[in-house]
């Protein structure tokens, strides 16, 4: 596995990019993004630039608008202001499935698997667009159907093996344990062949050893598939360990950006998480 330098370079739109990504087209360039729900501004003037192989963290207190940002990136919501450029292409007005086809895959905070289908089938649903076989040839069971299915089986199994799920391939997703379901969701997202992977609280509900394993897995995903990963997470150990750049949001606005070291000592971040010092009521 290739070694990456941790050195970061300053770029105009976002504080830092990893050194080796600095001269490349950012995979995701979010400019001045904002959304209002009625009179409430959930996200405002959100800027973010993600390099092609960066692991980035999106953190902030509960209700800060992190998941809303993910929903904006995947076109579940259409932004009120601003633009999202995915490899230079504006995703405005696109439907969720189109954005996914263009290369953004995600997992969900509250796991959303196809519970009645096997783990294998869950992954194969993720591979949908890459199974090259027309509707007619699957209806008539032409040779191209068998060829495509066989290739899909092989690739799905590889992905399951990669995520350590090979032995549950034939188990219904709904009956898998919680941590395994989270991994399966990542496998399914990877099956869509993304260039950006959004992980919404991947470590939620995991014990420390599972979290440590996940940390390793996240790095392995980036190194193997050479994709960018953005993760929302409350487990600071995981975030500080794995992320190269971090964006902190509160009340829908960015309050800090930078490397993990910079974020750790940022007074605005400490204030958002712990409250102001003057109040004397640090909770």
């Amino acid at each position, binding site marked *: 596995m290739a070694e990456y330098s941790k050195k970061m370079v300053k770029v105009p739109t976002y504080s830092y990019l990893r050194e080796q990504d600095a001269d490349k087209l950012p995979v995701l360039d979010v400019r001045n993004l904002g959304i209002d729900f009625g009179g409430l501004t959930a996200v405002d003037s959100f800027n973010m630039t993600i390099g092609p192989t960066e692991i980035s963290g999106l953190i902030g207190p509960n209700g800060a608008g992190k998941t809303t940002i993910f929903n904006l990136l995947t076109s*579940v919501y259409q932004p009120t202001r601003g633009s999202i450029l995915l490899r230079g292409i504006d995703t405005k007005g696109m*439907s969720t499935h189109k954005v996914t086809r263009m290369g953004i895959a995600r997992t969900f905070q509250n796991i959303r698997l*196809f519970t009645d289908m096997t783990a294998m089938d869950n992954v194969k649903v993720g591979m949908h667009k890459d199974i090259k076989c027309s509707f007619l040839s699957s209806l008539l069971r032409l040779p191209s159907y068998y060829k495509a299915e066989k290739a899909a089986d092989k690739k799905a199994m590889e992905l399951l*093996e990669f995520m350590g799920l090979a032995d549950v*391939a034939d188990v219904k997703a709904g009956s898998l344990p919680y941590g395994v379901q989270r991994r399966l969701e990542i496998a399914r997202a990877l099956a869509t062949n993304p260039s950006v992977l959004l992980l919404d609280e991947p470590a939620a509900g995991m014990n420390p050893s599972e979290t440590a394993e996940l940390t390793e897995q996240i790095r392995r995903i980036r190194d193997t598939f050479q994709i960018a990963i953005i993760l929302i997470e409350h487990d600071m150990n995981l975030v500080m360990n794995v992320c190269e750049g971090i964006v902190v949001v509160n009340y829908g606005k960015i309050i800090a950006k930078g490397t993990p070291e910079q974020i750790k000592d940022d007074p605005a971040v400490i204030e958002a998480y712990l409250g102001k010092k003057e109040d004397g009521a640090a909770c």
Partner: protein
Amino acid sequence: MKKNIHSMNNPIRSLWNNKTRRTTFSTYAVVIVAFVIMQLLDSAGMLSYAMRGQLIPICVYIVLAISLNLVVGISGELSLGHAGFMGVGAFVGAVTSTALQGLIPDATLRLVFSMVLGGIFAAIMGLIIGIPVLRLRGDYLAIVTLAFGEIIRNIANNLYVGMDEKGLHFAFLSEEGLHMSDAGKLVMAGPRGTVNITPIATFLTGFILILITLFIVLNLVNSKEGRAIKAIRDNRIAAESVGINVMSFKLKAFVISAILAGMAGALYGLSMSNVTSVKFSFTTSIDILVFVVLGGMGNILGSVIAATILTLLPELMRPLADYRMIMYAIVLIVVMLFTWSPKLKGAIEVVTGNLKEWLGKLTNKKEVGTNG
């Protein structure tokens, strides 16, 4: 077990494949065997007149149940107007068959042509309903299909169609509006339904239609399109998030279901000399839905069996006279309890589990026997 996993990927997968294949195989086998038995009984003259009359309707209801299962069980949308599609097929089929009587003298060919046309018209109806309604989230399809069924029934109830040497004539509300020549004859006579129809449907065509339906639906379910449709049913948001166009796949399932229902309807309409629009009312839609629910959501073989038994049941219980509908209801309740109640389900699982264990022991013994 765990040690073997990595080296045994292929066998595990092929076993899984075999399981699907086994279900598919048994579904075809049951249908074919049932057809052969019925055919033998019929040729031996062992079927009563009433039973013989039920053969084609059974085929029709099986196709209707399978096609509705595609929408309700596999796609997860509630449709309450399946009889509407059947009605469209029946009336289009009846008119087509009469119109083509001179052009295509061969009855079978004419039947096939009528069924195809019935399917096409039902598909158009499916598209008209599906495109706007399937965009919505929620049970809107149920309401709209319910209305659709009633609209079709009411249109048919007021529609007059005649046929003379100049071609087809259509009119609403009265026969006079047709302006036919003296040689003309009626095809549809409003509330009196279809008239002057030569019944050309046969049990064999019904059986072939079932096979075609099974072929289409089972192949669909076990393909990437089928996986996408089931994924939407299980979790719409997640399906979108993996790049599946929800609307497109729901529409595909809905329209395929409508086509099959239309073809079955055409077969039904051409199986008797007179079919009135009352047949395609809400009650029939509910009957078909009962077949699907009773046979098990998404279970194709279940739909086949439920449709067969429940179509025959009122006929078999004829000796019970007035009590037969009560018995029908009791049978429904008992079967529902057995298939849906967790307690009874658990009890059944215990029994089948014991049975499997016992069978396993039996086969093991055999293996030991052959080895030693």
